[in-house]
Every structure is written in structure tokens, then in C-alpha cells.
């Protein structure tokens, strides 16, 4: 449904701090806009973004309507071991999207 893009380096040295870039397509409708007829457009946003590294949570962001459409979040984490970084976005109207990336640590 949703189009998510994540950018994680494929390889890293043990203990290195890696940068993770994430982008997901979502309108992030604020709930403050109106149609030309004056009807309020209901809010439809992503509320929560969580990143887990081999099952351990390393980063979390709680989003509000003031986040621009197509939320783009860049953060960092320490490359501790080879494995999977899992990303999850959840929001209004039952919105849920997941994405994952693998990393080789040497």
C-alpha cells in the first residue's frame, strides 16, 4: 500500500555509527484544512515510527500533524552485529507499514 524507502549501508565495521535514512509516501493530512465548501478534512497522519535492530528498539519518533507530507526521518545507530533493521510506521485509520534492511557487520 504505502511506498517506503530505507537507506542503510550494506556493510559496516563493528562499533561504527551508521546513518539510516527513511522516507514513506503518506499525505499527512493535518485535520486543519478545509475543502472549498468549508467542510473540514479529517486528520490522517502517521503517529509513530519505530526502528528495531535485531529485535531491540534503537529509535522511535512520535509524529504530529506538523510533520511534512511523506515523512522523511534521518537518524543514526551503532552497527553492533550483522542482522536486520526493521522499520514500522503506524497511524490513523489503521495505517501500518513495515520495511526492513539487512546489514553485514565485520
Amino acid at each position, binding site marked *: 500500500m504505502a511506498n517506503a524507502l530505507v537507506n542503510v549501508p550494506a556493510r559496516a565495521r563493528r562499533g561504527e555509527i551508521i546513518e539510516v535514512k527513511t522516507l514513506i509516501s503518506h499525505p499527512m493530512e*493535518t485535520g486543519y484544512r478545509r475543502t472549498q465548501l468549508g467542510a473540514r478534512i479529517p486528520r490522517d497522519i502517521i503517529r509513530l515510527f519505530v526502528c528495531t535492530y535485531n529485535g531491540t528498539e534503537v*529509535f*522511535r519518533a512520535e*509524529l504530529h500533524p*506538523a510533520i*511534512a*507530507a511523506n515523512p522523511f526521518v534521518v537518524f543514526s545507530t551503532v552497527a553492533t552485529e550483522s542482522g536486520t533493521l526493521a522499520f514500522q510506521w503506524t497511524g490513523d485509520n489503521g495505517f501500518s507499514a513495515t520495511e526492513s534492511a539487512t546489514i553485514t557487520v565485520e
Partner: protein
Amino acid sequence: MDRETSRRAFLMGAAAGLGLGAVITVVPVHATPKEMEDAVRKVVGSAPVTKGRVKLELPPLSENGNTVPLTVSIESPMTAADHVRAIHVFTELNPQPDVVSFRFGPRAGHARVSTRIRLANTQTVTAIGELSDGSFWSATAAVVVTLAACLEDA
């Protein structure tokens, strides 16, 4: 008779509609600095907030309030004993003061995050950092917005 009633109903409906319109324009459509203060207090409780340590990067002039790049960071060793727990971002003139809360652990490596935010007005943005020792630090940045976000028609 029937026509008469519908005309009266129409006029009353129109009057009610006008009244409603007047009420809506009276209600402020943005958060005030006071509301931002309350939102900040909800996060920090009664703890004191000191200026400094937090670095908040925003363009001084933004042509489009719908997408303003924001980078916030705190210098920290990010060890189990001394790390940044969270960074919260607030605005004073958006419809609601909260923008985003980032939560970290020692495994984050750096307490540094970039994203894109919406700004409804020319205003000051505040970032509050929460450290593992329970102290709170803040930084502010003023942004001039040419095209405001949030309030345009769809």
C-alpha cells in the same frame, strides 16, 4: 403554505449558518506561546530547562512552510550512563504546539535527527533535549515563512 415554510426554514438555516461562520472566525486558529509553554511543561514536568547544548538547525528563511528541513542534535557520548533520552520539538504559532518527539537509547550512537516539518507562520521553533541524568536543555530558532502551511484550501 408549504412554500412559505420552506422559505422560513431556509432563512433560519441561513441565519444559523452565518452565526456559525462568525463563531469559527472568532476562535484562534493557531497555538499561542502560552499553549506551547503548557505543552513543554507536560513533557518536562517541574524540572528546570536550561538554554544550551541542543543544536537546532533550520533555514532562517523558508519559501514554503509545507516542508521546512530541520536538523536537531546534542553532543553526547551516548553511553549507558550518559546519553540523550529524547528530543522534543515545539512551535508557538502552528495550530498545535507539538511537532515531533524523538526517543533514543545508548545504541543510537549520535543524538542527531533530520526531518521535514510544516510551519503555519513566521515564528520561533523550540527544541527540548532530555538527558539520561534527568536534565533538560533547550534551543530556539527563528524562521521567516513566506508561504504558510496547514491553512490553505484543498
